């Protein structure tokens, strides 16, 4: 409007920005290399060093590689100025991995700084030192972290907690236990700030080492509100996992609905009505009036809730694959895996301490707290999470999307939760398209009888939205709504029909793709509504058929034509119109699009097969005409279809002059006819409800947003997988406690699922017999058992049976738990006869035959084929037999089912070993239980199966200390 003014404004703003730039580092960024940097770095003035470093940072920011200054920069670590230090650290961490040798030069300075009286200097030194990820200095860093973990300053202790994951990332096995110990110390810290950081370290280092949590559970809960927000998010997750591992799920919660499908179905239904009753009487009365509908919806609700809880615990991939594979239905969670939320103090305190967090100003904290309540809270209290979740919708588009994805799951499993708040899901014009579709989906899954009129009114507005893709989605949502609430079907149909008529006007000239989309979607919605109850919607079908001439979009036409074929024998009016319609279709055949042509062919055949009386002759004529046209079509698909139809119906068409009745009545005479009847005439009886294929991941997780297991996703631990130590609250849970204080094996068989296969049982049995004498020690196995039971059980587990019973028990525990998840497992056992050589320096041990038993489990390889090495080494002194394995590409010569595994044995002890053999565990379990001293022969191996499970390897008769031997074994994986 005023160009001259605009220009002045522009120069003005330029001038002002010039003014603002004075005193900033802008000139350094614009021209970082206008002076020689190297001499500045060596300057004795801090300000000059500082400037040089800023110039280097500017170059890094612009993408230049300035690592050649590394030696000079590293020298400046020793500076006293904190600003220079900070800049040096920034540079150092950027290039340390590139120049590891020079980076080592800085270590001395760091160590000096760690003793500095200024806490900030100590913390920075530790942070930078841990940030240099070099294996060489890891032990130095570990010492430093250990020292800082006991520092008087909170900030330094916090830095120590932050340094732990960096150290752990280096994957140095020998440090693991030391690192975990420090995590334990920091979790025990008095300051909430440290606890938050320690929680983050715990989650990334040893997320299943619950013994660290167990010690401080109550204190951690109480400190939770004071922990800083980021730590809260992580800590909430840890506490939730712990409670589930320790006590299992809560029987009043939604996750428990699995059991209520059996016993308390009506109760659950009543619950749902009760909840909705409070806010929304209309829905409740609707429930009463249409008992059937309510029951159905209640069922879906339950089934979903059940699925959700199974998915949370097992991870959807395992769960769904088992469903499709076994088809035996979900195996039951055992009663023992549930606990009462009313009497369990640990559950109560968790819920109590997380509920104020629903008011947090950090959305992620709110969502995490809501997740805990969703899983653990009694059903009547889950309502609590609704308003905080809805409040989160008032934030940036990105977080809105995440929150809506989570609400969607909650709303699907428990529609009554969000039903009273349907208005919050009305669409704003500023929402992005993805948010709009999510909102529509949620709306159509929570809508109730009383709300439907408001929702439809909104939908009418949405259909006029300029975004036609969104309008099409709205039309689809109308279809979904009327499927949920069958009484609304007529209203919906009327609206949709009106819409189709309206859209013709604008789609007449077909310039806009969007309009076509809306029209197709409208017809599809109509189709899905009709499918539910075809007889009552006969008039609608006729109206659609009448409108055939005005509908120009091929896909929409195809659907209408499909309906002609499908419902040709429905009611009374439709059959009368058929001959006209078919003639019309035949007349237009040549000008149709591909999909419509194919559909016309199908439909005419369907009509013909269902037809009776004199119509048949005319239909046959029409079909013949169309087939002739189709056989000359340009498209090969149409031509093929036409030939196929002619072949299969040849008899039918040829017998034109003869009596059709006999033809139909004598099926053996005309097999093709029957066949075609089956292909086309198979009136789809109301198809069974589609198998629900939703994937559910833990609320708030990344996987829930992307709908596949993101790296690092862990489902909840197995309920009650953490053995209890009988402590103070003995009296609270008498029954369960009695169960658990039983000998360990009964509990084990209890928690095994029904689909436990034979091998699992025998596997377990054999272990049981090995350890027969030790079983009484069931209460002291806590540590090892929990370690063995973590979710990240390695592909192959090797444990030393002879050395410690506890360890072996732990493995058996996890092995059988895994069997519950359908993963077929093969247990291999190798017996190693390690005999101290008598010719050596013979001492008192000479006569004693030391036997060590090794057990190797090979887990499911379909998911994770990764080569890792586990050793049988004694962790204390590094002695023993080291066994590495890798999958070899070699093809088995015996059977194509066998997989070759290359196993490498190395004797790391100081004594020679002899007679090393690896063989199948099952085959020798008899001898196993009989006497534990000898290596069994492999005679019984092949009798087990046609294909051997393990082809025995060539025995290694003698292994010198330090010697290595390689063998190939061939295995059969299920």
């Amino acid at each position, binding site marked *: 409007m005023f160009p001259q003014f605009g220009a002045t404004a522009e120069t003005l703003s330029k001038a002002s920005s010039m003014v603002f730039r004075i005193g900033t580092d802008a000139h350094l960024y614009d021209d970082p290399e206008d002076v020689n940097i190297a001499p500045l770095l060596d300057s004795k003035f801090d300000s000059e060093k500082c400037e040089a470093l800023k110039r280097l940072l500017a170059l890094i920011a612009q993408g230049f590689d300035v690592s050649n200054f590394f030696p000079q920069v590293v020298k400046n670590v020793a500076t006293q100025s904190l600003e220079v230090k900070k800049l040096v650290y920034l540079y150092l961490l950027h290039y340390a991995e590139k120049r590891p040798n020079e980076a080592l030069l800085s270590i001395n300075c760091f160590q000096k700084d760690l003793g500095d009286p200024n806490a900030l200097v100590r913390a920075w030194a530790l942070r930078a030192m841990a940030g240099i990820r070099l294996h060489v200095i890891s032990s130095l860093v570990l010492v430093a972290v250990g020292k800082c973990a006991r520092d008087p300053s909170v900030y330094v202790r916090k830095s120590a907690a932050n340094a732990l994951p960096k150290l752990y990332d280096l994957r140095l096995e020998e440090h693991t236990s030391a690192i975990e110990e420090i995590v334990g110390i920091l979790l025990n810290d008095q300051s*909430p700030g440290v606890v938050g950081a320690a929680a983050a370290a715990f989650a990334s280092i040893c997320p299943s080492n619950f013994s660290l949590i167990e010690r401080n559970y109550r204190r951690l809960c109480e400190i939770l509100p004071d922990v800083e927000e980021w730590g809260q998010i992580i800590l909430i997750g840890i506490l939730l996992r712990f409670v589930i591992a320790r006590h299992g799920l809560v029987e009043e919660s939604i996750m428990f609905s699995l059991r209520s499908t059996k016993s308390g179905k009506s109760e659950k239904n009543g619950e749902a009505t009760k909840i909705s009753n409070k806010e929304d009487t209309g829905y409740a009365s609707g429930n009463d009036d249409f008992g059937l509908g309510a029951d159905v919806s209640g069922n879906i609700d339950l089934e979903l809730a059940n699925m959700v809880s199974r998915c949370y615990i097992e991870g959807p991939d395992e769960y769904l694959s088992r469903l499709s594979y076994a088809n035996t239905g979900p195996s039951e969670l055992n009663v023992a895996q549930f606990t009462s939320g009313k009497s369990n103090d640990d559950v109560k305190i968790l819920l109590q301490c997380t509920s104020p967090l629903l008011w947090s100003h950090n959305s992620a904290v709110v969502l995490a707290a809501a997740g805990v309540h969703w899983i653990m809270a009694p059903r009547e209290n889950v309502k609590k999470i609704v308003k905080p979740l809805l409040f989160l919708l008032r934030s940036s588009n990105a977080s809105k999307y995440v929150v809506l994805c989570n609400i969607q799951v909650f709303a699907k499993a428990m529609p009554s939760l969000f039903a009273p708040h349907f208005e919050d899901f009305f669409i704003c014009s500023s929402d992005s398209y993805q948010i709009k579709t999510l909102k529509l989906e949620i709306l159509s899954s929570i809508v109730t009888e009383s709300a439907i009129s408001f929702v439809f009114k909104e939908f009418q507005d949405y259909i006029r939205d300029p975004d036609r893709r969104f309008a099409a989605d709205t039309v689809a949502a109308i279809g979904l709504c009327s499927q949920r609430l069958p009484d609304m079907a007529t209203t919906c149909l009327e609206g949709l029909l009106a819409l189709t008529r309206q859209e013709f006007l604008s789609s007449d000239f077909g310039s806009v793709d969007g309009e076509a989309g809306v029209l197709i979607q409208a017809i599809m919605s109509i189709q899905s509504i009709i499918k539910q109850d075809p007889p009552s919607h006969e008039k609608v079908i006729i109206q659609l058929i009448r409108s055939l001439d005005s509908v120009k979009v091929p896909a929409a036409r195809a659907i209408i034509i499909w309906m002609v074929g499908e419902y040709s024998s429905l009611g009374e009016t439709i059959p009368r119109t058929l001959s006209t319609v078919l003639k019309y279709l035949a007349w237009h055949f040549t000008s149709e699009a591909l999909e419509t042509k194919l559909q016309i062919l199908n439909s005419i055949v369907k009509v013909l097969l269902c037809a009776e009386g004199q119509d048949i002759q005319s239909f046959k004529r029409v079909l013949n005409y169309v087939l002739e046209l189709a056989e000359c079509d340009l498209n090969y698909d149409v031509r093929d279809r036409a030939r196929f139809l002619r072949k299969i119906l040849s008899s039918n068409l040829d017998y034109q002059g003869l009596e059709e009745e006999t033809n139909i009545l004598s099926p053996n005479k005309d097999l093709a006819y029957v066949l075609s009847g089956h292909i086309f005439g198979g009136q789809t009886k109301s198809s069974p409800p589609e198998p629900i294929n939703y994937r559910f991941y833990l609320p708030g997780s990344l996987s829930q947003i992307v709908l596949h297991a993101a790296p690092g996703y862990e489902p909840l631990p197995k309920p009650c997988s953490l053995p209890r130590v009988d402590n103070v609250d003995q009296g609270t849970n008498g029954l369960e406690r009695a169960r658990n204080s039983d000998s360990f094996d009964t509990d084990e068989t209890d928690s095994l699922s029904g689909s436990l296969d034979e091998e699992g049982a025998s596997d377990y049995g054999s272990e049981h017999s090995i350890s027969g004498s030790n079983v009484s020690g069931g209460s002291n196995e806590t540590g090892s058992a929990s370690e063995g039971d973590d979710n990240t059980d390695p592909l192959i587990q090797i444990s030393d049976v002879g050395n410690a019973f506890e360890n072996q028990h732990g493995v058996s525990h996890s092995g059988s738990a895994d069997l519950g998840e359908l993963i077929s497992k093969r247990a291999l056992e190798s017996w190693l006869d390690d005999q101290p050589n008598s010719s050596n320096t013979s001492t008192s041990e000479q006569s004693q035959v030391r036997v060590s038993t090794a057990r190797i489990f090979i887990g499911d390889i379909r998911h994770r084929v990764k080569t890792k090495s586990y050793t049988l080494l004694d962790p204390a002194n590094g002695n023993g037999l080291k066994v590495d394995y890798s999958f070899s590409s070699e093809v088995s010569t015996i059977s194509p089912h066998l997989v070759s595994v290359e196993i490498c044995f190395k004797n790391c002890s100081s004594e020679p070993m002899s007679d090393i053999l690896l063989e199948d565990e099952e085959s020798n379990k008899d001898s196993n239980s009989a006497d534990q001293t000898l290596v069994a022969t492999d005679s019984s191996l092949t009798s087990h199966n046609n294909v051997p499970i393990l082809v025995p390897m060539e025995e290694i008769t003698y292994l010198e200390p330090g010697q290595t031997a390689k063998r190939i074994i061939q295995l059969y994986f299920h």
Partner: protein
Amino acid sequence: MPPLMAIEFLCRVADVLSDYLGGLNEDVIKDNFVIVYELLDEMIDNGFPLTTEPNILREMIAQPNIVSKVLSVVTGNSSNVSETLPGATASCVPWRTSEPKYANNEVYVDLVEEMDATINRDGALVKCEIYGEVQVNSHLSGLPDLTLSFANPSILDDVRFHPCVRFRPWESHQILSFVPPDGQFKLMSYRVKKLKSTPIYVKPQLTSDAGTCRVNVMVGIRNDPGKTIDSITVQFKLPPCILSADLTSNHGTVNILTNKTCSWSIGRIPKDKAPSMSGTFVLETGLERLHVFPTFQVSFRIMGVALSGLQIDKLDLKNLPNRPYKGFRALTRAGEFEVRS
């Protein structure tokens, strides 16, 4: 890391940066790249948020201001990195700067509300709610303890708090008890649902016929809030099927931007007449009538009134040497105020 945590953290980084640099765009970041580097280094470490509390950050890394700029120009020396660890890192109130001193103690409490409303094609109010914030600006010495209570807390549908607010008093008595951070901060945000009316009305009318469409939009006061309503603007996006538009108004100015957005800025509603905008759209050739309709976004601002009706009852201060000055203000503006046509 949960996705929401990442998003929230990025928002926090953006807040801190724009707080430090007085805006957030490419140029500002380039000009202050050293500070940006230093801030990011303090805020995140190994992929996990480290220090995000603005008060602590401000003590660790000095904010660039006029004085420091002038100083750096004069002396050529500019250190913005603090030499010592901020005391707040160790205290149990990490959000508060340790022991600030002010000559005159003052605290201001602002109620800032945004009205979200949706009016459908029939002119009916589908949804009307208030999203409000209690913003506090405190300049108090020492470690004061404040208590804020509302006259009518029952109207609040849901709330979220700054970490400084203690949960217990709110749970039991709906009282906000807190030790405030220094300076400006958002004490609490709240939501009030199901309001019955809006302060102004916007009535669009579109009638289309024979390839053109007549538009008429009327704006007026429906419920006088008692204070002047100013900076009223009405914005809408032309549907893609409109070729050209010609709009005039009897009050205020109408602009049609290149991205097919029309904005009509009215300012205040005059006493003598009701502002209206009218004009015609020319539709795409071949299109007889308009079948998609734009949504009008309305914005306005009312000083001195909290439309939700929330009232602050009293603010008590403890632990202070002398009586501070207390100030209250209120402001309501339009949030997502939409009128469909």
